[in-house]
């Protein structure tokens, strides 16, 4: 079964081409849609919701044609916009109840589903307070709740982690994962950060300039690129801590990258050792090695990929090995 299918889908404005003959086949699960700002992500969502006509080509959502069955699609699909969309003077409960009714739910069901959904997204006592006083994290939860309240089969989440701090970001990504695993709702989530999607998504689609750049199961991405970025301090024994660590890690049998073209632009380039995270023990080996050298560990993090790096992968540009379904976690 395919939840979203597009065939030579194009959208041209007088001066820009937002989508250029896009062919997609998205299966149930969590799918990440990655692209820089202006890559055509929002345009694609607009067309899939049946709100803007495509210039050319076909698209179907849940087996329904976006041209002719817009209202029926929107009955079964949820949408969380990127920007702020909450009136500050009403409470989350009132607002989500209203949005549930706008989705066609009878009053009683709207109230019950609202209570359930707000609890699932982790909004508790504060749901009775006006939303003007909410933190960004709470607002994002309400926005997610209004997209889920009518129990859709598919949700479009447009940049749901925008403006969140690292903890809030992790919470939101965990929540998105649960929308699929626990609620059984398929997810199409957009982001301009590939790194944060690879932990959440089963499948990642990368578009650029309205064209499909790459579509593959997340496992393919992570196998090819999983790396740990390690930064250490210098010490009296090791005036160049970075070099010392690199040698020690090589001696410990790990593969250390000397920094490819993409790494030079990372913050702190030159002071960072990139270690191939072949398996989960890598973390421990790095920690132990740093401790033995007596260096201070500044950071050790999963490297975040940026879209630029995908351009630099010459391997398999536009191809669609509709793998899907592999849970990376």
């Amino acid at each position, binding site marked *: 079964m395919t939840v979203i299918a597009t065939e030579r889908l194009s959208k041209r404005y007088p001066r820009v081409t937002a989508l250029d003959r896009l062919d997609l086949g998205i299966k149930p699960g969590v799918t990440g849609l990655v692209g820089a700002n202006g890559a055509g992500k929002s345009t694609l969502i607009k067309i899939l919701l049946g709100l803007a006509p495509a210039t050319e080509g076909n698209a179907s959502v849940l087996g329904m044609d976006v041209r002719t069955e817009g209202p029926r699609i929107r009955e079964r699909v949820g949408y969380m916009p990127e920007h702020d969309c909450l009136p500050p003077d009403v409470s989350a409960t009132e607002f989500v109840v209203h949005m549930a009714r706008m989705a066609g739910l009878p009053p009683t069901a709207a109230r019950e589903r609202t209570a359930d959904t707000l609890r699932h997204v982790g909004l508790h006592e504060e749901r009775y307070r006006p939303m003007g006083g909410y933190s960004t994290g709470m607002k994002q939860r309400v926005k997610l709740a209004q997209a889920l309240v009518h129990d859709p089969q598919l949700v479009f989440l447009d940049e749901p982690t925008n403006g969140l701090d690292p903890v809030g970001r992790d919470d939101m990504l965990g929540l998105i994962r649960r929308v699929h695993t626990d609620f059984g709702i398929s997810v199409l989530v957009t982001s301009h950060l590939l790194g944060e999607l690879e932990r959440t998504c089963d499948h990642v689609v990368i578009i650029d300039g309205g064209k499909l750049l790459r579509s593959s199961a997340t496992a393919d991405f992570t196998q090819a690129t999983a790396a740990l970025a390690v930064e250490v301090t210098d010490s009296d024994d090791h005036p160049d801590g970075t070099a010392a660590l690199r040698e020690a890690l090589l001696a410990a049998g790990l593969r250390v990258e000397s920094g490819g073209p993409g790494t030079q632009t990372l913050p702190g380039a030159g002071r960072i050792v990139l270690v191939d995270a072949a398996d*989960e023990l890598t973390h421990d080996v790095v920690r132990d090695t740093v401790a033995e050298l007596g260096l201070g560990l500044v950071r050790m993090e999963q490297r975040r990929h940026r879209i630029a790096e995908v351009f630099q992968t010459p391997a398999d540009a536009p191809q669609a090995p509709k793998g899907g379904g592999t849970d990376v976690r």
Partner: protein
Amino acid sequence: MSAETTPTTARAAEAPAGASIHDIGYRHYDGERHGRAYVRRSLYVQSLRGAFGIGRSARSKVLPILLLTFMCVPAVIIVAIAVFTDAHSLVAKPTNLVIGAMPLIGLFVAAVAPQLVSRDLRFNTMPLYLSRPMERSDYVAAKFAAMATAVAVFTGLPLLVMFLGGLLGKLKFADQARSFAFGLVLVALFSLLHAGIGLLVASVTPRRGFGVGAIIAVLTIPYFAVNMLMGILWYNDRQGPVEWLGLLSPGTLMSGVQSKYLDGTSDFPGEIVVSDVAGAVYLLVTALLIAGSYALLNVRYRRAGL
């Protein structure tokens, strides 16, 4: 292989909220899902309630209730006079009450129209409506109907007070019913016209304050300007153009219609009643303004949101 590391990170993200969620579990909804008609009706009811501050904070109820009270006081006084003087008729006609209360109605329109449409634009809520099983035209229809109903209730209530009061005062039923019916026709025309103008102005001014100011300006400035011009022309014995000038503001338009067709007393200079030709044009312009503002609202919302 390494069962320790990955699940730790996974659990860290899920643990706090996860614990309670797994106890209850997610329940799917297999109940009824209504279509566009239900959605439109729900939006209409919610907007209409919102216009009078029902289901909103106590502070937003103050203005509608205050204005509604001011609207009803003259009606109560008129009834009281009739009852205590044993008169055979009320001292004012319902239609004249509506025309006389125009400034108050203008305030009400200016307060309500931005509440109904500007907020959704200002706070970017439109995309949420559009992503639901309704069309843009449903949104416009629901808001227009809610606004027109709100103005009709606001202007119709004092007429109802007069009608019931007149019956209590044992005035002749036939007379009362007739003038009440004329009053209701005026209320209907008046509400549709002012709903269209009010919503249209509010829909291009997402900031509430601007919306209120702009509506008051659009409703009052032409009204007073036309009245002044009419007066000047009248006293200079140039009566010909007076009846045509009335077409230039919504207030004088309604005033002309009620004195011509709805048995009202004219408040034009010299109490002139417009000619048959002019009367027909008044009706035509009214209809065009209502239809035109509704069409323009639809155009406005073709571009709104997302």
